[in-house]
């Protein structure tokens, strides 16, 4: 009884925020990327996690997690607070070293991903808590997303050698383009730290996008953004995939957004992956509903009382 009521509430949410199938429609007009058709786990997996476990002292954040993300797909990772979602992204970006398991980018396997090489491997990310460089302008924040392409030494930068100038000009052009793409022209010269929260989130997205990553990891990019802001930002995320062919792993709590935006959804609970499949399947998955709404635990406390 109760459970079915909850299921419908999930449905309602999805319908309210997003007309289902919007993602598909956009895709139909853009045949270059056909992520939905990709069988996950096929040879074209851009990201593959094999048997990842991670613990902090006595606390297990991830247990035997496997994940395959196909090229061009938007893969959501959802789960209750503390489920291990951010830890998963931190493992993928090499900030945490898993106790066990491997991370694969295409054909490269890593026990611990070398964070300093991440940009060169074609991976970019945003952070759950804003991680902008507050003392730089919005434009410079985006520009610095290309830091890994600047290989001229400091003497050449100081005197402004031809190579240094060329790289600087190329990077500036790329940054301008992303600024335009995400409609940030108005604020491009403002100090990032002085921008409203939603715009800061967008600048962070721009900073990640400017390098045209093959794989983009987004940790709750919609958190704390207003409703209209969310819709706009969601368009941008989808636009990024459609325009640049970027594969996206997206952590998000807003079920509505997730249902509308993603091709596949993986669900974590207490560090374990309890479900993985297309939105329609996840929506009706009993284990997910239990985990997400903490039903089992409420039962326990009831029994205890």
């Amino acid at each position, binding site marked *: 009884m109760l459970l079915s009521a909850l299921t419908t509430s999930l449905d309602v949410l999805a319908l309210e925020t997003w007309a289902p199938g919007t993602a598909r429609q956009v895709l139909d007009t853009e045949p270059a990327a056909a992520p939905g058709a990709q069988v996950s786990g096929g040879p074209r997996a851009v990201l593959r996690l094999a048997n990842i476990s991670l613990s902090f002292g006595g606390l297990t954040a991830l247990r035997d997690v496997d994940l395959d993300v196909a090229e061009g797909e938007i893969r959501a990772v959802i789960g209750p607070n503390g489920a291990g979602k951010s830890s998963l992204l931190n493992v993928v970006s090499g900030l945490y070293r898993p106790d066990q398991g491997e991370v694969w980018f295409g054909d490269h396997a890593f026990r611990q991903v070398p964070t*300093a090489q991440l940009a060169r491997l074609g991976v970019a*990310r945003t952070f759950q808590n804003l991680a902008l460089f507050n*003392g730089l302008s919005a434009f410079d924040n985006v520009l*610095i997303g290309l830091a890994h392409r600047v290989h001229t030494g*400091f003497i050449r*930068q100081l005197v402004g050698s031809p190579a240094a100038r060329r790289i600087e000009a190329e990077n500036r052009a790329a940054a301008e383009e992303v600024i335009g793409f995400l409609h940030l022209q108005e604020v491009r010269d403002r100090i990032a730290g002085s921008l409203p929260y939603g715009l800061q989130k967008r600048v962070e997205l721009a*900073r990640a996008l400017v390098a045209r990553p093959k794989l983009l990891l987004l940790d709750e990019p919609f958190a704390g953004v207003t409703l209209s802001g969310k819709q706009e930002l969601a368009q941008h995320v989808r636009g990024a995939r459609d325009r640049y062919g970027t594969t996206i792993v997206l952590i998000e709590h807003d079920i509505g957004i997730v249902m509308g935006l993603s091709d596949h959804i993986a669900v974590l609970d207490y560090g374990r992956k309890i479900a993985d499949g297309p939105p329609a399947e996840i929506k009706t998955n009993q284990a997910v509903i239990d985990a997400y709404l903490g039903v089992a635990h409420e039962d326990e406390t009831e029994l205890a009382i």
Partner: protein
Amino acid sequence: MTTITETTVAPTRLSWLTPNLLGVALLLLLGYGLVPWIGSDYLMDAVLTPFLALALAAIGLNVLTGYAGQVSLGSAAFLAVGAYAAYNLNLRLPSLPLLADIVLAGAIAAAVGIVFGLPSLRLRGFYLAVSTLAAQFFVQWALTKFGWFSNDNASGVIDAPVIRIGSLSFTSATGRYVFSLSIVAVATALTARLLASQIGRNFIAVRDHEVAAKVIGVPLLRTKLLAFGISSFLIGVAGVLWAFAYLRTVEPAGFNLDRSFQILFIIIIGGLASLRGAFIGAAFIVVFPLLLSRLGAALLGSVFDSGVLEMSQRIVIGALIIAFLIAEPRGLVALIDRAVAAARRLRSSQS
């Protein structure tokens, strides 16, 4: 009248991106064209020359602490390395021109700075700050202990050579002032240029969010060591000015921890991560004790002896540091900017 609300939305721009070239040109014109002709020897010797040397040292520390976010408590050590290196280069390689000595002395200070900056790769915050103290104590000890550095002068005292470039010699107070001004102007211009390049952005990125910087591909190791190197280079050159143009006779004890703190205070009071702040802070630190002693003497008469003066200086400087950290962490430079903006608003609302 009704435009007050609108003006507050004016974008906050980065000050170093839009350097007010006109203002700089005006200051240089003043510094070269007017001061040497009308300024007294006292002004140039006791006020302007130390001001310039301290400002350059503060720019150096600002690169490291203000821009790259690595706190250092050992600035005086690099002043000393610069001074003693230039002294020895001049003494032992007489064929080298003095300008080459100065640049090489800066380079030696940079090398020492990079060595002491190595812990920054693993250490953060306080742990790093404490480790920079190692530089402070080690350098001071080495310069006192090994007679070679001071050509076997008692307790490490060195006498600076005459500043001579080609056939020009800068012996008078005016000459030493003009020489310092030229070195500081060139060094400041180069630093400003560097800070506006990718390297400057990398510094700020490492300061503001090290993890994000790493993820993006900012080379942390190189960036931090570069910050230590450039910072120590500038401080080393400032040390040469301090020893050759200002004091003329220096000893290792003069480059003590208090000197390091003085430079740190300059950038806190003037404004972190601001080149203008370094100058404003240095001006404050040089002029303030002079004012305080005049004021104290006028108000208290003979009670205000040198001991009382020194202690009240400490108290006021300390209190000012706390006050700035609480009320305006961006320093005098922000205060001045705000005052200028307010004056502009006032004028535009009147017209």
